Every structure is written in C-alpha cells, then in structure tokens.
C-alpha cells in the first residue's frame, strides 16, 4: 500500500508545518488554545509517521519489489533480520527513521514537560516542528521511500558488509543519538526565543542529552566492532569521514555534559553551553549529511544522492539563525559569577571543554579538507591517519590526565598544599606503573607508555574516590559496607556514574594504545601444509573448503594455531561470494585470549585456484578491553540516567513554591 505510506507522510508534513507556523504564532501572541493545538499536531505527526514506517516495514517483510526501495535494498534470499535492517540500510528508509524518532522524541519531550514548563514548551514546539518539517519535506518530495515500479522477479540484495548482526543495532543507536541531540537543541533555542533563562530547560533536557550521548557512544563502539569483524582490514577505526561524523557530535555533547555542571553549580557558562548544544546538533545534522549525501568517499557511503544541497542549506540556516538568536540574547545570558581560580574543578572542566572542542574541530577540519581542496584546487586531498593520530595524542592524552585531576580538585579554588596531599597516592601509582611498564619494554612506543601511565593515574583517582566516599557514608551511619557503597552511588548518581564512565574511557584508552602502539603484523602466501609465525604464535594451513550459505558461497581456510608447544585449536578465515549482490567479502578469523585481552586476527587476503592462500595476520594486545569498555560505559550511563528521587522531590518542591504544577 504505497499510497497509504505517501498519504501518511503528506499528513505528517502538513502537521509539522502547522505546528511550526501555528506554534510560533501562538507563542508570539500568547494564545493558549492555539499553542495546545500546535502541541497536539506535533504529537499526531508521530502517529502518522509511525503509520508510514509500518507500511514500509510491511513491504520489506513481504518482499514487495514494486517498492523501488525494497527492490534496491533486499532480495528473496536475504534473511529476515537483515530484511528488517534494510529499513535503515538505504537513504530513504534511514531518513524516514530519522523522522520517526524525531517526532517520537518531540511528542515525548513535549508531553512530559507541557505542564511545569508550559511557558517554555510553547516555544520548543515550533523549533521541534521546524526540524521535523525539513525531514518530512525530504521524504515527501526529495527521497520518498514509497516510489513504485513494475515489480522485478527479485531484488538487488544488500551490500554484503551490511549483512551482519551489528547492523541491527549500530545504525539505529546512532540515529537515536543524532536525533536525541535535537531535544536539548529545541529546548535551548526555545529558552532563547522565550527569554526564559532559568534552569528548567537544563532540567528538562538533562536525561535526553545523556541518553543521546550514551546511544551515540555505544552505537560507535558497536560500529567499531562491526568494522573489526566484518570489513576485514585488521582495524576497528579508520578515521573514515562517516565514522568521524558520529564522533564529532559525541565530543561536543561530552563537552556540554561537563560544562553544564558548571552552570548548574556556579551559574556560569550560559552562553558557552548554548553554543555547545547548537554545535552538537549541527554536527549531528552534518553527520547525517555525510552519511547520506555520498559527498565524501567512505566505506559507509552506500549511495550517491541529491539530498546534499538541501542538507547543506538547512545546516547553514540552523547555524545562522541559532547564532543570531544567541547574539540577540547575549546581555541576558551573561553570568554575574566569575572563575575564582585557574586551579579549581570548574577550571579543570573548562580545560577539558577546550581540549574536547579542539579535538572536535581538528577532526572536522580533516573531514571537510578534501571538499575544500577539491573546490579550491580541483583535487580532493585526503588527510591521512597520521593527521588524526597527531591530534588524538596532542589533545587526547591531556584529556585523559584531566579525567584524573578534575575529580580531586575542589570547586572554586584549591591550595597547592592541598593538591600535593590529594594527588600523592595517584601520582605514586602512576609513576610505579610507568616504571614497571618501561622495564617490560613498553618504552618502544612513547605515546603508548604515556597513555598507560595516565590511565594508571586516573584509575587510582577513581578507586580513591569510591573508597573514600564509601568510608564517609559508613561513618555517616550506613549499616554495612555494601549499604554504604550503594548509598554513595544513589545519593549522587551523576558524579559516581560519571566516574564509572571515566573508568570505561580509561579501559578504552588502554585497549587502543595496546592494539595500535604495540601490535604486530605478518604476511605470507601458504600452500596447504605450510606454516607461518607471528610473535609466539605458529599457524599451520591445513585445509580449504567451500560450502553453500543461505545467500552466499562460503570459502574457508582452516589453520591450526599453536603458542609455543601448546595447541590452541583451529581458526577459519576466508571469503563469502554473494550471488545476487555479485560481491565478495572478507570473513576474518579471530581468536581471543580472554585472560590477556589479546586477539590473533587472520585475513585470507587472496585465495588462488591452486588452493594456496595469501594470509595477513595481526596480533593485537589488549584489544578486547575496548569492547569491555563498552559494557562498563553502558553501566556508567545507566547509573547516571537512573531517576533520582531526592532530586525529583527537590524540583517538585521548588516548582510548587512558584505555583507551578507539581507534576512535570
């Protein structure tokens, strides 16, 4: 029923346009019923978009190839799970997903805050509606998922690298992150338009921002693991423009999550925070533009399309209008409080912000440089890995150190004598760790050694904070150590959840440093029965077999693996030849050592007709800490996201003191 999909999207466009125009008019003139009507239109637009999404999903599941989108992205042989993931595998479907999540988040955020922040919400609705109107226009007029044709016998199938379980979660999580950043943007712009600079916009968006940030973080890690196991080049992050596109808004959102604490605790950095929210949202739009426009060469750019100019125009309009608004409200946004000392927690947060922003802008420059060089010199010059690695070390290592310094410095100011006492234990731990690693040969990579030493420092500060905090809670009357520990976390979820996230970042840094600075690689062409060595490992090429998979012919080389005299079993690496898609993919073999976190990673680069295989083999120390970091990151994010009843009661009491409804 493509007509129903088209009609539903047309109604969505009408509703969002109405919410934009009527909402802005109602907010400007102070009309209550019209404002409520605009809010209803925004909520209804989610229902109509959901109907359109249901039509597309149904067409995918029925293999209805009369839908051009279905025929282009799936085939009869494609397993059902990947048929569902085709919803976001192509441009039109992913834009529809953007719109669905956007209208859903808009409806939820407006419904949850329409009572206690009603004077703010009247301006938030038209901002949400403006973004939704843009996306609704795209799926109605520029890239419709409901275009039809005479149905072919079978579809073109899905790009082989997308036929991976990670594709069921990685893109939707990134979209949740990208779209989630619309919520703080809409509330920040709504607050600017309304001239309401109290804390309500921060309170209303705090968990949305955390959720979007966590989804972006986990989505990127899943994407990295997908690249590691599926793309088959031996790495997990290639500084690809589309990978960077997700990293940049995450960095901006990370900066915001830190600097917003300074606004909440000291009433400072109001302009800075609004600018960070605008930057994070604009980068989320830019990320979608990069992924979907095909404007840059990327392993992720699956399509060349015509939506680029529309996106660029919308991003330019968003940035210009937002900055003009900030400039207009500048006098009201100035804070009476000043930074009291360069040695204070707020100063440490500020340094952290500057480093995050510098890293973000360095990456942005690396992403746009090929476009600029092509426009100016007629030749696209791509900045390689060394460019990004340089800035990752220059800004990332000090950032890592600051994660350990920040929590141990007092707000407002800290004396040098106090710092010497506070930092004694973490510094000793870091120096000892550095010396031990140096004696073990880690000095072969100085950045790696520095990263490990800083990591030891940060882990020591985190452990110290938990130990001291638990002791203090016990002294304050907790009945047992576990009770003291849980009370410590539940009384300040953001602080201690944040420390868990910091621990995740440290694990990540150790994994990255280990697998990139201390890895080894070996290559050899082997005939059956021949062997090769890498480090302590010996690989014996035993056999080659071909089998029929559900939608591909699978060729696998089997290797026996030994470490010294110990037999570690076998490993398979090979290729899949996809019949319908007419493409071949690398299927790598990985053997993980759960104790050391090390991977033995085998790629069958070339398989010759005589059965000989050209193998490329990596040993990646500590790489599994990167994936473990993902789990720890998830735990830390959940702690920070968990509702805080004490804070809720305080907010309700505050609201009732000015006569606002007790419920949000």
């Amino acid at each position, binding site marked *: 029923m493509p007509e129903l999909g088209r*009609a539903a999207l047309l109604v969505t466009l009408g509703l969002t346009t109405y919410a934009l125009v009527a909402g802005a008019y109602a907010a400007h003139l102070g*009309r209550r019923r019209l404002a409520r*009507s605009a809010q209803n239109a925004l909520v209804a637009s989610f229902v109509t978009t959901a109907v359109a999404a249901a039509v597309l999903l149904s067409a995918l599941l029925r293999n209805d190839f009369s839908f051009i989108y279905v025929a282009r992205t799936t085939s009869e042989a494609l397993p059902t799970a990947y048929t569902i993931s085709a919803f976001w595998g192509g441009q039109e479907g992913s834009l529809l997903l953007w719109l669905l999540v956007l209208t859903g988040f808009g409806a939820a955020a407006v419904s949850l805050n329409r009572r206690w922040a009603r*004077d703010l919400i*009247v301006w938030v609705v038209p901002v949400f509606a403006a973004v939704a109107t843009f996306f609704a226009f795209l799926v109605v007029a520029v890239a419709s998922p409901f275009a039809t044709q005479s149905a072919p016998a079978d579809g073109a199938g899905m790009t082989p690298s997308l036929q991976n379980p990670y594709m069921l979660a990685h893109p939707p999580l990134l979209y949740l992150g990208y779209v989630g950043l619309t919520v703080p943007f809409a509330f920040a712009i709504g607050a600017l338009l309304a001239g309401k600079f109290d804390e309500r916009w921060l309170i209303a968006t705090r968990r949305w921002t955390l959720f979007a940030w966590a989804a972006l973080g986990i989505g990127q890690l899943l994407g990295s693991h997908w690249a590691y196991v599926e793309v088959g080049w031996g790495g997990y992050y290639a500084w690809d423009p589309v990978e960077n596109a997700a990293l940049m808004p995450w960095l901006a959102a990370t900066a915001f999550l830190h600097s917003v604490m300074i606004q909440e605790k000291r009433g400072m950095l109001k302009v800075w925070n609004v600018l960070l929210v605008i930057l994070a949202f604009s980068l989320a739009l830019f990320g979608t533009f990069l992924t979907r426009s095909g404007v840059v060469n990327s392993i992720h750019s699956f399509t060349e399309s015509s939506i680029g100019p529309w996106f660029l125009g919308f991003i330019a309009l968003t940035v210009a209008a937002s900055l003009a608004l900030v400039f207009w409200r500048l006098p009201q946004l100035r804070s009476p409080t000043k930074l009291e000392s360069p040695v204070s927690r707020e100063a440490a947060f500020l340094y952290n912000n500057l480093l995050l922003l510098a890293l973000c802008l360095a990456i942005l420059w690396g992403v746009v440089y090929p476009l600029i060089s092509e426009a100016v010199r007629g030749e696209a010059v791509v900045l390689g890995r060394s460019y990004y690695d340089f800035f990752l070390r220059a800004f990332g290592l000090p950032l890592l150190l600051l994660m350990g310094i920040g929590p*141990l410095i007092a707000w*407002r100011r800290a004396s040098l004598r106090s710092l010497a*006492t506070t930092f004694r234990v973490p510094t000793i731990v870091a120096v000892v760790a550095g010396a031990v690693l140096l004696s073990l040969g880690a000095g072969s990579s100085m950045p790696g050694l520095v990263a490990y030493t800083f990591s030891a420092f940060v882990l020591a500060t985190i452990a110290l904070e938990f130990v001291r905090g638990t002791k203090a809670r016990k002294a304050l009357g907790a009945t047992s150590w576990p009770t003291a520990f849980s009370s410590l976390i539940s009384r300040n979820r953001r602080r201690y959840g944040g420390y868990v996230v910091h621990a995740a970042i440290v694990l990540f840094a150790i994994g990255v440093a280990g697998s990139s600075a201390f890895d080894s690689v070996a290559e050899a062409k082997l005939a059956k029965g021949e062997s090769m060595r890498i480090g302590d490992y010996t690989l014996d090429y035993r056999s080659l077999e071909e089998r029929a998979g559900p939608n591909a012919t699978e060729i696998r080389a089997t290797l026996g693996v030994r470490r010294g005299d110990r037999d570690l079993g076998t490993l398979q690496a090979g290729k899949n030849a996809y019949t319908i898609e007419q493409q071949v993919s690398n299927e790598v073999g990985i053997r993980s050592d759960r104790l050391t976190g090390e991977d033995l990673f085998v790629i069958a680069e070339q398989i010759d007709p005589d059965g000989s295989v050209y193998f490329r083999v990596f040993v990646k120390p500590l790489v599994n800490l990167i994936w473990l970091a993902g789990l720890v990151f998830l735990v830390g994010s959940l702690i920070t996201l968990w509702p805080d009843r004490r804070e809720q009661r305080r907010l309700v009491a505050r609201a009732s003191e*000015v006569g606002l409804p007790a419920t949000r």
Partner: protein
Amino acid sequence: LTLALLLGAALAVGCVVAVALPFLREPEPESDALDELDDDDRRRLALLEERDRALAALKELEFDHRTGTVSDEDYRAQVGALRRDVAAALQALARVSGEGQPARKRN
C-alpha cells in the same frame, strides 16, 4: 488503492480532530492567554535556584571534606563564604515572599 485512500483519509480526519481538540473543548473560554510566570514568580524562581545551588555547594563541600578530597585548609577557606551565600539566598527569598503575593496554584 481504495482501501489505502480510505485509511489515509481516516488518518487525516483523525489528525484534524486532534489538532482542533483544544478549540472543540473550549469554544468560548474565559481567557485564551498563556498562563506564564509573572515577574514576581520568575524572580522567586531565580532565587529558589540560587538557594538550591548554594545549599548543594555547601553539602558537597561538607562531603568532600569528610572524604578527604578537600583539605582542612581549603574547607576553612570556603565554608564561610558558602554559608553566607546560603543565608543571603534565604534572606532574599524571604524578602520577595514577604513583598509579593502568595504563590497561586496553576493548573
């Protein structure tokens, strides 16, 4: 095609009703003005935020001192100023509450 068009039309009608609902429920309201915070309430809200911020800062300083993250020297240097901030916020709030009308209940 007919069924799809019928469903599409039904969807559109449902949306029109949802959008018109505030006007259908209150065809002739006493007031159609937005219920916004007046200047007194906004001032009171700002002071309440100031009070909560000062109280939270004092509480955090006390806890950090107890854990040893903040030394005795730094604690003594800060606690007086923070207590004065709390007192000033409470006094300002009491002044505004005394001057202004009692907070009215908003629905």
